């Protein structure tokens, strides 16, 4: 049972930065050590926390930009945040 659960979770976990438009999920964790992000890990994590990206928050990708589907407009609980996909890579969702 536990084995099965872990397996199903890992298959469904993904980075918010890779999620398609219309994706609805929950934030599992923030893993901010990503290459190419505009801020270092801790600073990026703080920034994301400030904008409401906390564990357990409900997220939905509402809109995306015309060029390379970037940036994205994400509904985080009851507010909408625009963020680049590069920074959204730090957000693990399921």
């Amino acid at each position, binding site marked *: 049972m536990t084995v099965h659960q872990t397996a199903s979770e890992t298959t469904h976990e993904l980075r918010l930065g890779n999620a398609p438009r219309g994706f609805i999920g929950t934030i599992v964790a923030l893993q901010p050590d990503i290459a190419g992000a*505009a801020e270092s890990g801790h600073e990026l994590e703080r920034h994301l926390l400030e904008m409401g990206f906390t564990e357990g928050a409900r997220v939905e990708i*509402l809109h995306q930009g015309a*060029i390379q589907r970037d940036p994205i407009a994400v509904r985080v609980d*009851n507010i*909408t945040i625009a963020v*680049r996909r590069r*920074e959204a890579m730090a957000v693990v969702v399921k």
Partner: protein
Amino acid sequence: MTSTDVTTERFHLALVGAPNSGKTSLFNALTGSRQKVANYAGVTVERKAGAFVTPAGRQVTLLDLPGTYSLRGRSPDEEITRDVVLGKRPGEAAPDLVLCIADATNLRLTLRLILELKRTGRPLLVVLNMFDIAQRRGVSIDVDAMSAALGVPVITSIAVKKAGVEELRKRTDEFAANMPAVTAGDGWTPLGLSEMKALQREADRIIRDTVKMPSKPDTLTTRVDAVVLHPVAGLAILALILFVMFQAVFSWAQPLMELLSDSFGALGTLVAQVLPEGIFQSFLQNGLIAGVGSVLVFLPQIIIIFLFILLLEDFGYMARAAFLMDRVMGGAGLHGRAFIPLLSSFACAIPGIMATRVIDNRRDRLTTILIAPLMTCSARIPVYTLIISAFIPAETVWGWVNLQGLVMFGLYVAGIGSALAVSFVIKFFMWRDYQPAPFMLELPDYKLPRLKSIAIGVYTRAKMFLQRAGTTILSMMILIWFLASFPQAPAGAEGPAINYSLAAIIGHALEPFFAPLGFNWQIAVALIPGMAAREVAVGALGTVYAIEGGKEAADAIGQALASKWSLATALSFLAWFIFAPQCASTLAVIRRETGSTKWMVVTFLYMFALAYVASLITYTIAKAAGLG
């Protein structure tokens, strides 16, 4: 201890809140037009202070601190907010009371900020703003329970309603009457990650206990965004809005600008007729009146641009425009919000540079200010049309393209291209070590703009332009008049008087320097009064070539130039004006907006260098092609 100091001692209030919490409208409602806008010493951050009197007659100073989500102090703006709240900002009184504005429709992030503010020990009063909108949306808030849970007094307010504002003034009195001893600021340390998470959990818990949310979010915003943020429709709407704005700045402002400049021209002529001829008459007409006129003539454009910007900002559209343009601008190392200031610069760099205030990050803002003067402003158009109509044949090329129009288009493209290139170079070389601010931005719910608040905003901008830029521009005008008038022509001298002035002496001195560009001394002389505004160079060329009639004589000037200049010189002159550093007003505004002479000098020098190199290349190639 005595109650008599009610009227003598000033009470200091500071407004803190997240962006889009309605902080500015509340500030406007509390202070009306009693506002002072300045810069904090040494930084590009705007300091907005206002004053009001409480029902008990207490004098209150109100400081509108930059919006922030935390006391982290990530940008210079946020550092100001943090330092003032902690009482650590030199020259700024520590606030007796911090008013924390929370958008009642969107409490999650602000409640965390309130808990963070509470830790500073500074007395706090929470104002639940936009309470009416929240109620209409079905949000119900148990204000007393929230106040108890936060351990901070909470009041509700509707920024635009008189009653709410009166209530706030009354509460300020009550608070000031029994002010607690303050022990703020000393033990404060920035929050660690785990503390931040803990505070957010606590905030979420308080919201769960005291706020009832409606099941569905604001459907209007969702429905509007489905169109406005659509990859295709959204860009089309943005283009349409910009088109209207551009039209307004160009054509609505035009009659007013002409009226202003004609009135000042007429006033100058009147003075010239009434007063005896002489140096005093010349000073009044060409120095003072022309100088004041040249300041006021920008006012219609500035008012229109800020009207649009404040309207779009209040609607909540600015954040959407930044979202749509972020990738396009990001390619050149610019922030999404730089788009509107740069577009405004096509009309005139001055309102454009002032509009860069919408960019929060200091370096992004500086980059935008530095490249804004490269956008082809309307003052270059008279120069372009003069040279193009005199030298470029009105032929049709490739079957349907007008050659003159093509050259004009090319000049615009050259301006945009060089702006993007300069921005890229700045990011690459100057600020290589600098981590750009990540694009992370709240897209607020749409709201109807409050007209009174917008009117106050536009009024404040206009006043600031007149006070701050106006004085510098006026003194530059007078200096230029002085250079073009002294020493005076000797009695019975031949040729126009300007040929005997300091401007002519400088022009002759500069001639060898400009010779490689194909510029003769007349051009060098004309560039000096052209410092006043680029189009003045047209009239100045007329003056040095002794053509009567000023601006109206453009055709005659064109003919004279066509017979005296080679095509290579004309092309070189056009290339010069793509960059054309000489606009005293722009330089003055850059100095005022950046708060430093350094950036003004940097702008002048880099534009001068680009202009010189571009003209040199153009002239050399044109000459080699046999056009010299």
